[in-house]
């Protein structure tokens, strides 16, 4: 398959993830959309690495995967704390910092 096929697939997954981030009300649902977007970026990195025979893209993907796992752990810890304090994880209700 040509490089464009992989990039198109990644763009589609990215758009779907963006749709999830924009439309979900639940904070956990928003995080799931972000996961999809990060995945699409990883596909891009690996595809470019493969078609340019450059190892750096593979290593970048390795780093982004690890960092994403840390991000999810901290993000969900925040969600749980918010739930403990506010009894909701609806993003629209979390407007404590709104001016």
């Amino acid at each position, binding site marked *: 398959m040509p490089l464009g096929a992989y990039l198109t697939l990644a763009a589609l997954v990215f758009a779907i993830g963006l*749709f999830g981030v924009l439309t979900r009300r639940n904070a956990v649902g928003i995080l799931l959309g972000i996961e999809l977007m990060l995945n699409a970026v990883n596909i891009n990195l690996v595809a470019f690495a493969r078609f340019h025979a450059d190892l750096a893209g593979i290593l970048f993907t390795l780093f982004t995967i690890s960092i994403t796992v840390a991000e999810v*752990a901290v993000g969900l810890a925040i969600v749980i*704390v918010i739930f403990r304090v506010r009894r909701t994880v609806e993003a629209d209700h979390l407007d404590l910092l709104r001016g």
Partner: protein
Amino acid sequence: MTAEMLAFAGVAVVLLASSLGVVLTPNLFHAILYLAVALVATGVVFLLLDAPFLFGVQLLLYAGGVVTIVVFAIMLTERLVGTSIRQTSRYLVNGALVSLAVFVGVAGFLVQAPPSAPRPAWPGDLTVAVGQALVGAFAVPLELLGVLLVIALLGALYFARSEG
């Protein structure tokens, strides 16, 4: 139609369908299960791109780790898996328009791009090459990654501690 094209088409269909499931299903618990399918399908895309090592990492960290953590979070915040977990979405039309615009913008670049050259040869054993790069040129980023993981661990502990 070659075997590679068939495999790519199959995994693309699975990946796109499960991604749509993640963002569209009203049940958040089902969304996580769809996410697990999407993450495994992404791993298969890595396999098609001759990166079996990343497939293993993807399964271990993403499909194993992230899905488990998210399931935990849902259990803790919704307590009863059932009706309370249903959730509605908002701005469906606006969200679809914005993401469609982003896709069209990216696809515009892809259409203009010159056709790619066929895949060049890949350096022998990828796992060996990755391991050597991690202790060679990428040693400092690897150490920084370790620091970041420790900080994330401490941060999560700080958030999760009991009051007082």
